[in-house]
């Protein structure tokens, strides 16, 4: 990682975090009428994976897609416009938070129904093979999605056809409020897929450098074996499943200690890492300021932007 790279990564992580903190700040004003599944704690996963894979690689995600969307686009204008339901949003206000996409940046689809973009990614990888291209495809999904049959069907097909596809399992140990043990007939996801012809790797989702390293190594294995890969990344979901609040008080899980908070926060981890490498605090602070400024302007634009007109209701159904 050279200096420019480090700062770029820091900027992306920060952009995601501050964008979501901005959502938390303003959500109560009820201008963002869309259910938000915040990424706080999970940001490093898409940032790391997208850093490793070639630019423009087709990507797929879930409703918990803010980090992925911003990692790929860094475009807070269309992001906030969409959350505000405005014509200038990436989906003209028809997508909302759960269906962000940006095909021009490789983000082909995200979905509010758990697991449903996994086979779409397989289809995109098949399209690569069909065209004799070897651009990798990545699909991000939660640990709960690995319980859906479609995950296994997709895994099987991708392995059978040796597709160039990276499955990224973002494991927060929760499906809404249900802990892993209540949902799994296996002890770990990498072990469960162990019988399939795919490469696997694991990483700590709080550690951007570790994610980058694991992705690199896995991608090398995939290239060597000409088989798909599964990257399993565990992370800590700081907030409630959907919405802007913490929910430790509800009792289904323990609040982390202050030390745990620091250890599981990918932004704190990565900035400490940069500082330990000799980056100057002022460099980082400059990025923070610049990012906040960008977000602030985007929110302002989103607020004053127009809603789609009534005719838009019937548009975009057919090509």
């Amino acid at each position: 990682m050279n200096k420019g790279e480090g700062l770029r990564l820091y900027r992306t992580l920060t952009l995601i975090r501050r964008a979501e903190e901005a959502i938390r700040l303003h959500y109560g004003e009820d201008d963002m009428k869309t259910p938000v599944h915040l990424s706080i704690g999970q940001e490093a996963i898409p940032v790391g994976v997208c850093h490793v894979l070639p630019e423009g690689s087709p990507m797929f995600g879930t409703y918990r897609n803010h980090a992925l969307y911003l990692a790929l686009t860094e475009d807070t204008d269309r992001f906030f416009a969409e959350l505000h339901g405005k014509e200038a949003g990436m989906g003209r206000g028809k997508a909302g938070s759960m269906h962000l996409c940006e095909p021009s940046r490789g983000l082909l689809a995200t979905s509010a129904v758990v697991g449903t973009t996994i086979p779409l990614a397989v289809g995109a990888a098949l399209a690569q093979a069909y065209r004799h291209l070897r651009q990798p495809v990545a699909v991000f999904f939660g640990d709960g999605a690995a319980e859906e049959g479609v995950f296994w069907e997709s895994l099987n097909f991708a392995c059978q056809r040796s597709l160039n596809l990276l499955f990224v399992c973002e494991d927060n140990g929760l499906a809404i409020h249900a802990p892993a043990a209540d949902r799994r007939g296996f002890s770990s996801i990498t072990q469960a897929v162990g019988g399939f012809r795919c490469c696997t790797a694991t990483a700590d989702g709080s550690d951007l450098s570790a994610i980058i390293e694991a992705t690199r190594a896995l991608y090398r294995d995939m290239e060597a074996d000409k088989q798909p890969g599964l990257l399993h990344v565990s992370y800590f979901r700081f907030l409630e499943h959907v919405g802007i609040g913490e929910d430790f008080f509800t009792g289904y899980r323990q609040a982390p200690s202050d030390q745990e908070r620091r250890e599981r926060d990918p932004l704190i981890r990565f900035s400490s890492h940069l500082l330990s490498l000799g980056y100057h605090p002022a460099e980082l602070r400059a990025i923070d300021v610049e990012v906040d400024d960008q977000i602030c302007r985007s929110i302002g634009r989103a607020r004053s932007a127009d809603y789609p007109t009534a005719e838009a209701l019937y548009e975009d159904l057919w090509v």
Partner: protein
Amino acid sequence: MTETMTYREALAFAAAKEMDADPTVFVFGLDVPDHKRIFGSTKGLVEKFGPSRCFGTPLSEDAMTGVAIGAALSGLRPVHVHIRADFLLLGMNQIANVMSSLRYMSGGALRVPLVIRAVIGRGWGQGAQHSKSMHGLFGHFPGIKVGLPTSPQDAYSMLRAAIRDDNPVILLEHRWLYDIEGSVDEQYLPPLPGPVVVRQGTDVTVACTSWMTIEAMKAADVLARHGVRLEVIDIRTVAPLDETPVVSSVAKTGRCIIADYDWLYAGFSAELAARLAHHCFGVLKKPIERIGFAPVPCPTTRPLENLFYPSAVQIIRAVERLLDLDSIDLSQESFYSYEERFKGPF
């Protein structure tokens, strides 16, 4: 034994009553026992009956639907709960190929006493994948009963009736109804009930499902002030469908609006319209009007979502057409808009 309670409380109360009365009844599904309790509708069950009779599952709608069928075949009475009806699309093979037909295919040897509960209706800009209703679609397959309770009493009585029914029943519950309060007579335990006239009138029959009944009542209030008397009928059980109460009403009014909470195309509104057009032939003074979702996926943004969903205003406009009235000034009226009351995130 009549108590005032909300719709969500009535659902939880009904389940508890049946679980009390019959040890084969159990309630399961994603998030059923967590602290949110499916918008409160499974509250108290896990405390009272324990995790063997009220439990969550992995994210596996296809298999879980089959599990419910297998348990029902084994003499249990599962209640399988979904926080969104859209997720039932993952279980459609089990619903339409298996659940609906096992009894028939076995020449009557098997029975599948199974209830599927699913939430429909608007949330906080849920969008295209969290807004389907599909009651007509489920009714399309012979062998499935489909109900949409509107009042707390219906929620209570229909859930109990569904659990006692020896056939598979799907109940769809509109989320905005959950907050509605009403009196519930806990002794009132009919089998799944047919259409009910919830407001008598003479000018136009409005046949409704689910939340549209509330919208129609609102429209009726407004129109009453303009001298128009709507007869509002809540269909409640859409399959099997007994259209005769609607036919009788139309015989009186000669005019009919079907206000359904779904797309029109081959939805329940189409079935009812086809039947009424047949049975009320010569009696209808004007063609039947159908009101439902706009024919597009549900958009998330406020202004478009408001245009997507059917409302009292649309009913009023249709009444004006049917009665050749001038357009009523509605600018001073306040209509249901959970914009104000209903807040996010989900």
